[in-house]
């Protein structure tokens, strides 16, 4: 009776050794056959269509350097890109949908608003990145806010506004954004037709006169950080006027837009009282830009649970996240759901990881990983990290 289990223990140990040896096998044949389908050579997002869904395309280093130098891609994605030695984005349904809509929009009509929503880690920001790449290729003027939560929930410094009573400036962040805006639109801003429509008076000695180039305004904001917040608002205003006149075509992309409407911010006054989001100077400019009262523009925002405090992360749906005020501000908007990976996308993602030597294939990998991560892209990435 007692002898037999012992024999078993020995047998189990032997099996265990054979299991370790099986780890060394790194070749899986079935994935070799799929290798062609997960990647597309089409690097221009203008040419992406339905047949490219679930395929990866390479974001060229030159484009990335112009678009996403000062933020725009999630941090974890950046580390992945560094490890993989290339930046690849998956072509997914929501981004294609928005791009398709952008192709068909009548730009003489008021600006259309799109709201990307979805659960945590489903890839809203990356869908936004894909759309931005498309807009970049289409020579849109890009007004991109990488993450509103950085302003409302972890701003670098705050000071009382000088021009407006009771408002709070977050000048360092504003200057950072101006730099981001400048690098993203370097090729458009150099065009001579982008000029200011009116005088901007900063102080007794400092003014930006009418018909000076927009670039000058930005340079001023970066140089004189004290006026950065007001410069941002002025630029927002100018962009609206310029696109209304048809001098440029603008895309407004704001990530974590619902932070503009979430009552509890971490911006504080001198007396350490929390400030309402509408009392932050920057809010005004971007809320102004997301109205529909201008032409030649398209507005894409994401609403995200992560942009608000943890205790209120109840639902991922846009009406809840925007609140009554935000919903009325954006209404009518086109909600676009960014959902979890489909089976095809999971396989494609895993194939990509295998091709990048990130995960070691073993039998049953796909099913197991899909099940454990519940097809959530972020969780999938996290789970694959240790495989």
């Amino acid at each position: 009776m007692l002898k037999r289990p012992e024999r078993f223990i020995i047998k189990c140990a032997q099996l265990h050794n054979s299991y370790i040896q099986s780890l060394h096998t790194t070749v899986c044949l079935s994935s070799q056959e799929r290798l062609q389908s997960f990647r597309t050579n089409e690097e221009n997002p203008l040419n992406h269509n339905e047949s490219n869904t679930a395929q990866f395309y390479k974001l060229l280093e030159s484009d990335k350097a112009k678009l996403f130098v000062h933020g725009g891609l999630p941090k974890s994605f950046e580390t992945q890109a560094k490890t993989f030695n290339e930046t690849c984005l998956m072509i997914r349904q929501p981004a294609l949908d928005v791009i398709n809509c952008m192709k068909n929009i009548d730009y003489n009509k008021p600006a259309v608003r799109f709201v990307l929503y979805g659960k945590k880690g489903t890839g809203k920001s990356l869908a936004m990145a894909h759309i931005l790449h498309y807009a970049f290729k289409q020579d849109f003027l890009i007004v991109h806010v990488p993450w509103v939560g950085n302003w409302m929930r972890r701003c670098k410094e705050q000071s009382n506004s000088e021009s407006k009573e009771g408002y709070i400036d977050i000048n360092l962040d504003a200057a950072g954004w101006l730099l981001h805006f400048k690098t993203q639109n370097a090729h458009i801003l150099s065009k001579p037709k982008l000029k200011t429509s009116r005088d901007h008076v900063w102080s007794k000695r400092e003014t930006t006169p009418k018909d000076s180039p927009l670039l000058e305004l930005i340079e001023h904001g970066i140089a004189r950080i004290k006026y950065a917040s007001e410069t941002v608002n002025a630029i927002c205003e100018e962009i609206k006027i310029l696109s209304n006149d048809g001098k440029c075509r603008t895309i407004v992309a704001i990530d974590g837009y619902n932070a503009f409407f979430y009552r509890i911010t971490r911006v504080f006054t001198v007396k350490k009282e929390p400030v309402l989001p509408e009392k932050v100077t920057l809010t005004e400019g971007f809320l102004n830009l997301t109205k529909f009262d201008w032409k030649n523009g398209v507005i894409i925002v994401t609403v995200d649970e992560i942009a608000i405090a943890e205790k209120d992360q109840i639902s991922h749906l846009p009406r809840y996240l925007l609140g009554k005020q935000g919903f009325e501000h954006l209404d009518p908007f086109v909600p676009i759901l960014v959902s979890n990976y489909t089976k095809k996308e999971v396989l494609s993602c895993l194939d990509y990881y295998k091709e990048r030597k990130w995960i070691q294939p073993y039998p049953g990998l796909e099913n197991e990983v899909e099940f454990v991560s519940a097809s959530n892209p972020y969780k999938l990435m996290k789970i694959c990290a240790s495989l």
Partner: protein
Amino acid sequence: MLSYSRSFEKFLFSNVEKSLPFSIAYSTEVKKEVKEEFRVLNLKNVKRQTQPKRAQKQLEALPPRTNKMPVDQDWGSVWPGPRSFHPASVPLPVRQGYVEKGVAPDKYANAELIKIPNFLHLTPPVIKRQCEALKKFCTPWPKALENDKECEKHFPIEVTSSDYCHSAPTIRNPLARIVTIKFKLSSLNLNERAKDKFLRLVGERYNKETDTVAIVTDRCPLKKQNYDYAMYLLTACYHESWNVEPWEELKSEADMEYYDWSKNASKKSVEALFGKQTEDIPNVKEYSEAVSTLMNEGESEYSVTKYGDSVRKLLGLPDAPKT
């Protein structure tokens, strides 16, 4: 050996016990002899020793009535009215209760059976007979009230109260005073505003699913008074709901009980977007319905998708791809 002797003692003892009542029965002659034989030393000069108690005469219970019941008896006369269970009158081998081991206790001395209400007086033949007897006092059912719909139309208010009949020193039951009136809200023919006010006045008394209002009155001591009070309440609420007070005009959006698209910012923004009146905008109806359902029924994946589809139609964008 020891155990044997002990059991023997036991045997003797039990025999003595058994014979004791026997000896009492023949007491009179034997007592005298005993007194003469044993003279008890009465030191303290107590008059008498304690007398043996007189054995109480056990009344023998009569056999249960059920033994004598014929099969074709008239049950209605055996059990004419409501009454708690009596084992000897019910010729049924009923059992009730639970014991840990063994079967459920039978009907004799069974408190469980006595506690529960029974309907032994309401057997079908008895009911039939009573109905027959009552029939001659009834009037024929009005022909106009053939179905429930007609009844509701002619008698919209349903009044409910209870009478109690029981054997107690008082014939009054405090529960008899309670009066409930029920009616359909639609039978009041109120307009939208008045209906809203009426609902706010009656509060929880309104049942949304059946569209009925139920007013229960029990504050007066008599049934008549309560009925009058209920009628008064109904009349007062009805007339008050038609009244328009000056402060009612101040009702703002936050006080609305449901989302009305035509009164909201959504309509204004759509009109501003198109620069037209609502009636002239194509596809606006579907959009307004989608917004209303989104607001009224709460947000869900489905309602948001519907909203998106309607916005796409409104703005003339290509349809969402099917997944």
